[in-house]
């Protein structure tokens, strides 16, 4: 507790209720654990989830996920990698034989960047550290506000701050409206932005990117996104 801040009656009441359980919280924990499992449970993730017989007494105890130790885990990992490479190959073929969809574009960049990681800060800039789950690759994608240039083709000022992603596709970095390179998509239920070159940035993270600072008047296309100060990401 900060020495200069005593708990006044209103804050005492607030603090008191913070200790109370929420009705149905145990069920919520079980459901959340399963949801988390599904998210992490792509070909690789599910193989790495804890085994029921190893986690007695834990909410993970009733998991039906495969055991993650020894050979079985490594075998599943290898199979998963083969699976991902096959998906990536299919996506590349798809892009070269027909007009590419966002899905194909994303699949190809995802496979290229899965496991490459470059992150900073407590909740910092992030590229993928895990392969896409089945759920993610089947998800529909939302296009954020984009400018016409590809990544790396423009300004190089340092842009940084908290990344937010709204359900309507509007994004902000450090509170400023963000405009992304052509080909950028939002995926994972507005959980992250993925650039065409494979970089991903998770909502709620502190990010650092290069780009330029502009005003709303300098953006050419009409948009539903609000904000006078605009950052162009490259």
């Amino acid at each position: 507790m900060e020495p200069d801040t005593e708990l006044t009656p209103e804050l005492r009441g607030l603090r008191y209720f913070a200790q109370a359980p929420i009705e149905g919280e145990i069920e919520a924990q079980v459901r959340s654990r399963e949801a988390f499992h599904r998210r992490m449970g792509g070909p690789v993730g599910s193989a790495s989830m804890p085994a029921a017989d190893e986690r007695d007494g834990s909410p993970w105890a009733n998991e039906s996920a495969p055991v993650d130790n020894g050979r079985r885990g490594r075998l599943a990992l290898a199979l998963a990698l083969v699976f991902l490479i096959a998906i990536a190959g299919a996506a590349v073929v798809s892009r070269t034989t027909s007009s590419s969809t966002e899905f194909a574009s994303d699949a190809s960049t995802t496979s290229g960047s899965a496991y490459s990681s470059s992150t900073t800060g407590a909740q910092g800039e992030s590229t993928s550290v895990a392969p896409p789950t089945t759920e993610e690759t089947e998800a529909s994608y939302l296009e954020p506000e984009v400018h016409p240039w590809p990544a790396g083709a423009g300004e190089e000022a340092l842009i940084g701050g908290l990344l937010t992603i709204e359900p309507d596709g509007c994004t902000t970095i450090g509170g400023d409206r963000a405009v992304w390179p052509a080909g950028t998509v939002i995926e994972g239920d507005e959980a992250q932005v993925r650039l065409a070159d494979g970089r991903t940035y998770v909502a709620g993270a502190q990010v650092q990117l290069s780009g330029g600072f502009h005003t709303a008047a300098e953006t050419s296309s009409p948009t539903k996104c609000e904000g006078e100060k605009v950052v162009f990401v490259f």
Partner: protein
Amino acid sequence: MGTSALTPTDAELLGARIDPQVAFAQVFDRHFLTLYRFLARRVGPTDAEDIAVEVFTIAFRQRGDYVALGTSALPWLYGIANNLVSRHRRSEQRYLNALRRVPEAPSPATEEEIVARTDADRLWPVVAAALARLSDDERDALLLFVWADLRYADIAQLVGVPVGTVRSRINRARHRLKTEITTWNQIPS
């Protein structure tokens, strides 16, 4: 939280190179309920569940960036949760505005708890309404302080502003709550 081999710290679990998901499951188990309660009081139980899953998903993906603020990863998880709540502002407003009924709480045992409970029972409706009227920044800072029990310095680091800014926001929020309660107390019943 101990540091013995039997009870690894959160930092040790998040840094596990072998079986990282098994190790992370322990972090999930340790902190889910605390985090869920924090979220449920802000945006309601349904959204809280979704956000909690999102928090742990992001935490797992970014565990390599974890910088311990202490022995517990909870402040770090609160920081992620707080950022995600910013995408649910309308739910938060709606939920706080709907909280006219005093929430369930444990029966008070000590004299201090009895005072707190009495304050809470009496003031909760007006406090909930006042919380909804605070600015987002003020509410974030206040609730991270009062509900998450974080220090000013931790809040500053998580929110990405100087400590003085956090202090100002909390003081403003307290002042507003106090003003609303004073006004409410003066209304004849």
